[in-house]
């Protein structure tokens, strides 16, 4: 019976962070972090600037490597590495992890030379090998979902910040990730644009998406998150319901 419980909890834990440590130039950024992120829940990483939230998120996605500990994403395990260039095997693991956990950045990172719909189609076509027509249909559907059907042929420079962020979310969703990692998705936006993005995220949450949101903004946490983790000086200082942690 305990075995079934274990399996159940493993299935429930989408992302597991175990005793992860990381230092930049001798300064500790993550100092033994342990967190379990539950499947189908929205978790929020909060805390002061420099507390290690964004770094942890980037470690989960493999954009940053860590010095010690272990990270598991949907059953794929990633260990520490000091090498600047990952080995061939590591690269394959990293790519597999990234396909499971999509990422949205504070600065959107839309491809400047592609229109909104091309941005969303890009990875399905070139990474998954989806046919152009299918990819386009799916991309248009996703753009509709984030309320941007009418902007599908606009280039990023022609879109507002909020619109760009919504395209970025659609782009990440196009790869059908098991989880979505969002790094300060609303920080660069004015209040009206923030509301647009938060609305999209809330809809995703209702649909049962697994999300980890790094944010400074209490309102966003209260509105969307099921669970909150506060990181300070590279350590988890509190964890629980958003209202408790805040």
């Amino acid at each position, binding site marked *: 019976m305990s075995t079934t419980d274990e399996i159940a909890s493993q299935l429930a834990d989408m992302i597991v962070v175990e005793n992860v440590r990381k230092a930049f130039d001798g300064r500790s950024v993550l100092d033994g972090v342990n967190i379990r992120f539950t499947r189908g829940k929205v978790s929020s990483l909060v805390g002061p600037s420099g507390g290690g939230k964004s770094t942890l998120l980037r470690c989960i996605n493999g954009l940053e490597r860590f010095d010690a500990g272990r990270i598991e994403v949907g059953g794929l395990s990633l260990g520490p590495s000091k090498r600047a260039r990952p080995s061939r095997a590591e690269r394959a693991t990293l790519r597999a992890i990234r396909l499971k956990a*999509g990422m949205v950045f504070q*600065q*959107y*990172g839309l491809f400047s030379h592609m229109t909104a719909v091309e941005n969303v189609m890009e*990875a399905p076509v070139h*990474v998954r090998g989806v046919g152009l027509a299918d990819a386009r249909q799916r991309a248009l559907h996703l753009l509709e979902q984030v309320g941007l059907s009418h902007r599908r042929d606009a280039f990023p420079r022609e879109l507002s910040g909020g619109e760009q962020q919504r395209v970025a979310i659609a782009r990440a969703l196009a790869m059908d990730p098991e989880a979505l990692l969002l790094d300060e998705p609303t920080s660069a936006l004015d209040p009206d644009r923030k509301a647009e993005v938060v609305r999209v995220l809330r809809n995703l949450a209702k649909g049962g998406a697994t999300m980890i949101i790094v944010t400074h903004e209490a309102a966003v946490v209260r509105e969307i998150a099921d669970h909150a983790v506060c990181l300070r000086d590279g350590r988890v200082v509190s964890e629980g319901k958003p209202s408790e942690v805040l």
Partner: protein
Amino acid sequence: MPTIVRVHAISRREASLRLTSGRGASKIPHVARLRAILFGLVTALTVLLACGGTAPAPALGRIRAAGVLRWGGDIQGGEPYVYDDPARPGHLVGFEVEIAEAIARELGVRAEFVQNDWSHLVPSLERGTFDVILNGLEVTESRVGRVRFTRPYYAFAERLMARADEPAMKPELLALKGRKVGTLANSLAFEMLRGTADTVVYDGVEEPYADLVSGRTDAVLLDDIIAARYGAPKPELRVVGDLREGYYAVAVRPSESDLAESVDSALAKIAASGELQLILDKNHLWNERQGKLASWSTAQQRAMLGTPPPPPPLGPAHALLFLQGAGITLLVSTLAMSLAIPLGLLLSLARLYGGAAVARLASAYVEIYRGTPVLLQLYLLYYGLAPVLKLSALAAAVIGLGMNYAAYEAEVYRAGIQAVPKAQLESALALGMTTRLSLRRVVLPQALRHAIPNVTNDFIALLKDSSLVSVITVVELTKQMTITAIDVRTWMGPGLLCASLYFAMSYPLGRIARRLERKLEGEREAEEAT
């Protein structure tokens, strides 16, 4: 005929100029050419003004009052003309030093040497930098129209050399019809060969013989002094024979006939007394050909000078040659850029994304090619590699310029790649793309677009830098201009024609580059605003 030696010296000087001019290894060289053109234009203006000016003052009186005869020459011409005494650096020796001192002594003054680039000796004489030229200036038709020559102090022969294993070559000008013959631009030999042989022109004296040995040419026609020093020592070559005689004489400004007559009588005295023979003998230059110098008659002088035909006007035939030159310039530049663009892209990717060893190699390539003169690179590629890799002149020009410009393009692309926001590359990786796919689909399309204005600007610079390939015998637009300028005896027309052709090629490109730049700037601003 030290013509050759001197021109060689100048190219070396240009090389050192390039070496010391900062970024410039490949960006600056055209400055040297431009300087030559400007110098020519300014000189032409000066001459025009001088012609309408004051009546000539008695030159001899001026020289005697100063107590000095200033004679112009170029030390870099080397042995046996005027050169630094290897045993006593800073002290000049050479048969021309001794002749100048003898002439000055006869005039009752002392001789003072004035250093001047050999190719600018005549313009410098015209503008009054010195009193006379005494530096292996050969009596040619085009020069007779510009300066007043005294009686000769040396008689040379135009010597034809060929490979020793080709005994069929005959010592006749007509036998050279259609053959590839090396010589120096604007020399007496160059004028002789025009219209007969397929002339290959050089700036230095070593190279014609080196190319003859390696089979790039069929023969070399140059002064016997040069042939004896640079051609004859090569066992692979043989002397075919001498085609005609020529003379070195002192050049004086045409307006200063009193000085010309005094130098003439001084030379006559030195020749008659046997002093000239002593000087030439001492320098191993005396031969039976010099015998007539002692009893030089006015009839011989007239025959030597000939009746120079009026300079041909700059006509449609020249314009056609210029267009051909511009065609070569465009061809060399376009092909070189087509090589530089992919090679530069490869280098920039190697520097940014290659392993440590690959990145270091690419950096070394860029630094070496940017840190050494492109002129030197062309020399090494064409002459240095000749024993193992015999490239044609055009191929060497394209490869040499292309490899040099690749180093600059690599930096342009590197800047373009680094200008793509990091968030875009990370987004691509986060979407599961490999680094290679991210580069191909996301980074490079944007980086190349950002690089277009700079690449266009570099192409404009390359159009002008391509004038350097004349050192490896490619006759492009600038070389055509210098050849024509001496032919028609003025720099003004050919200079303006040449400049307008360069301008016609580069101005539209400059406009396109600026327009693209503005467009990209607008897009960037729009991106930053969101």
